Each structure stands twice: as C-alpha cells, then as structure tokens.
C-alpha cells in the first residue's frame, strides 16, 4: 500500500503540530495522570508520523517501526506508568521547580526558538525535514525542561519519554529513520528502561512511602 507524498506530508505536518501542542500541554499540567495520557498520545503520534512517511516513500522499515512504536510507547508504557500511579499516594506535581504558568511560557518560547533556529540549519535532508525538524528540536528541549523542573519520579519518566519522542521525530525528519535493526534496538531499550524505572519507582514507594525525588539527597561529595 502506498499513499502519495502530498498526503504523507500533510500527515507529518499534522502530527508534528499536534506533538508540539501536546508538549506545551505537558509543560502546563500538574496532574501526573493527565501527563501520562498526553505523553501516550504524543508517542502514538510519532509512530503515526513515521508510518505516514513510510507509506509515502515506500520505506517498509519506517512502517514496521512506527507500528511497533504505537504499540509499545502508546499502549504498553502508559499502562505500566498508570499502574504505579494508582499505588502512589500523591498524584499531582505539587512543588515543581517551575510552576505550570512559567513552564507554559518556557515551552512556548522553546517552540519559537526551535522554529527560528532550525530554519536553514539542515538543508537537503528528507521530505519531512524542514517541517518535522523544528518540531523535533522543540520536543527534545521540552522533554529536557520537564526533566529539569519536575520532582516526582513518574514526571521524570514522562519527561524522558517526551525527550525520546523528540529524538524519534528527529530521526525520520533527518533521514527517514535509522536502519530497522537499530530502530528495533532503540525501541526495545526504551521499553526496558521504562520497566526498570517502574521497578525503582515501586521500590521508592516501598522504602520512602512516595515517589518524590526530594528524598534522594543523602549522597553528597
């Protein structure tokens, strides 16, 4: 099955725009449950965008990688994260280093900076480039913003996933994605990393009674 490049470009545009908006939404929310939902949709959209480019260009590995990404990051990962959230006594990001309003402003600033900065930086890459790349850079930076300003273990994992989504978007805006073996390896690693994060979040719950990383301050010097 193939679709024509113009439709594919429209799909990528739509997905990239939605991914950026979801990133801004993630920066603005305090509810960890909502953050998990938003990042699940965002992950699924990166997969859909990859499928779109794959169908347009006939690159099967992008389609396969995209389908697996939708299943793994869009379904399995949020399920795993949700299971910790249900056991956790605190389900909101109560004292982030940067409040929701300031985060919102920062996220919007990131989007503008990324679109200005990416212009003309990479000429001559694939179909999606130029459209996908500013969105990809903005998503990577939004992920870093979340990791730096949030204090709950689950919020940090959400931030990491946003960061990963940004990298996935970069991958196919620059080059139609990596070779399939590499894509599969990356996806597998991300999944295992989330499972290990789940294990440690559970241990934190058992040991400290919450998943707040504020308790992790005993190791110094």
């Amino acid at each position: 099955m193939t679709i024509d490049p113009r439709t594919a470009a429209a799909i990528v545009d739509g997905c990239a725009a939605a991914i950026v908006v979801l990133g801004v939404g993630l920066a603005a929310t305090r509810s960890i449950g909502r953050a998990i939902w938003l990042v699940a949709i965002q992950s699924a959209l990166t997969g859909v965008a990859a499928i779109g480019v794959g169908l347009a260009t006939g690159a099967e590995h992008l389609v396969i990688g995209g389908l697996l990404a939708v299943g793994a990051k869009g379904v399995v990962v949020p399920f795993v994260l949700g299971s910790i959230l249900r056991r956790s006594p605190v389900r909101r990001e109560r004292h982030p280093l940067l409040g929701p309003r300031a985060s919102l402003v920062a996220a919007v600033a990131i989007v503008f900076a990324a679109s200005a900065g990416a212009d003309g930086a990479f000429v001559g890459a694939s179909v999606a480039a130029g459209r996908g790349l500013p969105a990809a850079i903005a998503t990577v930076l939004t992920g870093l913003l979340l990791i730096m300003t949030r204090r709950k273990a689950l919020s940090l994992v959400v931030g990491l996933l946003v960061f990963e989504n940004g990298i996935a978007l970069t991958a196919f805006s620059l080059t139609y994605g990596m070779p399939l073996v590499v894509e599969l390896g990356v996806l597998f690693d991300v999944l295992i990393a989330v499972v290990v994060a789940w294990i440690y979040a559970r241990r934190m719950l058992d040991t400290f009674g919450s998943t707040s990383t504020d308790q992790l301050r005993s190791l110094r010097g």
Partner: protein
Amino acid sequence: MTELLAALIIVAPTAAGLGAWFADDRQAGRLAAVGMVTALAAGLTLAARVFAEGSLRVFAGEVVVDALGAYVLALVLVVATIAVAGSASHLAHERAAGRVRPHDAGRYYALLLWFAGGLALVPLVDNLGLLWVGIEATTIVSALLVGFTRTPAAIEAAWKYLILGSIGIGFALLGTLLLYASSVSVLGETSDALAWTRLSEIAPRLDPGLARLAFIFALAGYGTKAGLVPFHTWLPDAHSQAPSPISSLLSGAALAVALYALARFHLVTAATLGPAFSSTLLVAFGLLSLAVALPFIVAQGDLKRLLAYSSVEHVGLATLALGFGGHVALLGFTLHLFSHGIAKSTIFLAAGRLVAESGSGRIGRLGGSLARSPADGRALAVAALVLAGLPPSGVFVAEIAILLGGVQAGWSLAAGAAAAILALAVAGFLFHVMRVLVGPPGSAGAGPPASRRWALVLGVPLTVVVAAGLWTPSPIGAALEQVVGVLGGGRG
C-alpha cells in the same frame, strides 16, 4: 570457526545468565563461572587471531573486530571474570549480614552476566547504531545491579544513574543520528551507512557541519557514560553504592567501553574535519575532569567514593591522551586502559570486603585494616600504589607516556597542568588509603581470614599489572602497536 567464537562470546554469558536466574543459589555461582570462563576463552582466542591475522569480518560484515575492538573485548572479558570470581565472597558476606533474600544470588549472577555480555557486544559490532543499543542495554541492566541491595542510598544512586544515564545516552543517539544523516547523503540508504569501517572510508566527504554537531552530541552522551566532568555526577553514587564486584565492572570495563565509543566517533570526526576540532574538545574535557575530581579526592571521607573519584580522574587522563594523539600518547592511552581497568576492579573487590567487614565505608572507621585483614589490606596497598601511578606498574608507564606524548604533540601547557593535578591527586589518594591501612583503629570488627582462592583472585591481576611496568613480552608489545595504529587513524 570465527563465527562460533564470536557467537560464544555473547551467547555463553547470556545463556548462563538465563540459567542462573532460575537456578538455586549454589548452582547459580557455578553456572556463572562456566559461562564467564567460556566467554573469556573464546574472546581471548578471537583477540589473539585478530592480532595475528588482522581484522576479522564475520556474519556478513555485521561483526568486525579490528585491533582496537579486540583489545577492548579482552579487557571487558578479563574484568568481568575478575568480577564473577569476586562475587562468591561478596554474596557470602551479604548473606551473613542477612541482606540476601532467596533467589537474590541467582538474579545477581544473571544480571552480572548480561551486563558483561552487553559490554562485550559493543566492541564486536561494526555499526554505531548497534553500538548505541549495546551501551544503552548495559546502562539499564547495570542500573538494576546498582540498586541491588535496596537500601535507600542504593535506590537513590540507581535512580540518578538511570535518569542521568538515559538523558546522556539520548544525546549519544542524537549524535549517531546526525552522523547517519551526513553519511546517508553520501552513501544512500544502505545498512552500512552506520558502519564505522565505511564511515572512516568516506569521512572526507561527510558534511562538516553535521559531523561537528554529531561529535558534540556524542561527546556529551558517551562522556556521560564515561564519567567525564560535568556529566559525571551519577558516577560516584553508582560506583560506591553498587555491590563491590559490580563497582569493579563499572569502573574497570564500562568506562573503557564508553571511551571506546568516544574513540570511534573521534576517529571519524578527525578524518572529516581534521584532528584539531575533536582533539581540542577531548583535551579540554579531560583536563576539566582531572581538575574537578581533585578536590573530591583530597577531601573524601568514604573509601568507595574515593575509588570512584579516582576513576573520574583516570577517565580524564585517558580522554586527555586520546585528545593529545600521536604515537607515544596513544600508546599511553592503550596501556592505561588495561592497567587501570585491572587495578581498579581488583581494588574495588578488596575495598568491598573491608567495607563489608566493618559495616561502614567511612575512612575514619576503617583505620587499621592492614592488621585486621592482612590479605585485603595488602591488596588495597598494592593496587593503590599502582593506581597512584608509582613505579613499577603499567599505570606508571602509561602516565609517563601520556604526559610525554602530550608535550611531543605540542600540548605542553595541558600536559604540565595534568602532571601537577595528578601529583596532588596522588598525595590525597594515598593519604586516605594510608589512613585505612594503618590509621588509628576504627570500630570495625575483623572478618574471617581470607581463603587461598581469594588471595588468588586479588593477587593474580595485581601481579600482571605490576609486571606490565617492568617487562612487555614481544607479542603483547606488537599487539599494543596494532591498537595504537588503529587509534592513530590507520586500519589495523
């Protein structure tokens, strides 16, 4: 035959690990030993063949082992064998302290073997993407090992390691992507567009802008894994909280593997842009690591953290050597990688037993260890002298070569600064080790006397490292020259 050897290196530890996971505690130890020794034998045979016959290419070119790869592979397997050999004693101590639950030993051995298998995979693959996958996989497995004791401090260390490691390794993936983008525009979308053998051939035609950006991201990413300042903050926590044999593997092998990844990127980047760009960055970050680790060594109060910061110091020195370039400095780098890996993995085993006996890692409480536990105390003393770079030892020769090579390559100022920092760090390091060995006795209790087997586990590696400073058999010397040839940009 070569296929079989290459496959055994990965399959033996992976399968033995799987068996150990389900085995009872005693069988797990035996399975681990069998799996590790098999991998070691296969790996050393493969490495010997590479050094005798030149690069090997198997599995349709997916696996390519040149002299550098063979050398790192041998180091990883030797250090992993030391770690497995030291695990029985560690687990016995933990069991006596009531910290081992049923099935813990099996899981511990399984994770340890998978960690070792992942590290061994990295120097075998001829693909920067799969290299990334391998390093990320080792990060995840070792994060489980760092927090294995489940104390609050261990959970904290493991969490920081997991999060910082994931961010770092994410940057390395971005670097890999950018390099892939620049190589795809030359080669088209072939599967070997990420093969470092192909990349070094086409390096002069790569897009310089993308290559520059790719190296910066790779430096931040693999620099995080290698513990380069300012990406090192997870390292002292993880290396000090992990079970001691795991600290051995982390400090002795995992850091070397990250440096290996950095070296591959450096080779491609230098071939694209000329050596100046990446060399300068490596020298700068190497010096920064040396300088920042110094105060933490001098003012350290915890034995395992002292060893961890010494690793930061040594990684800084190795990065510096890579940046200096030139035959002498690269020979120093090569020798340093091995000597430091062996000495550091041994000293972590000795220190781990001292800490386990006293129930505290505080240097003040460990005083008088030499009288209390003579075998571990002596090993700690010898390994500390080796790591401090005192003659005769492989580290001493390596440090002299690196500093001389730096001066030769025109980096006199950097080499001078590094020499001064190293001298101060040695003083601080040895002062603390002396306090542990012969300082006023702390509250520590004496453990059981060391077994003959334990004396071998500590004694054999240390003898090798000390001997490396006195005499290099000519086949080993020729092998080192081949590694330097690869690092110098030639094809081994």
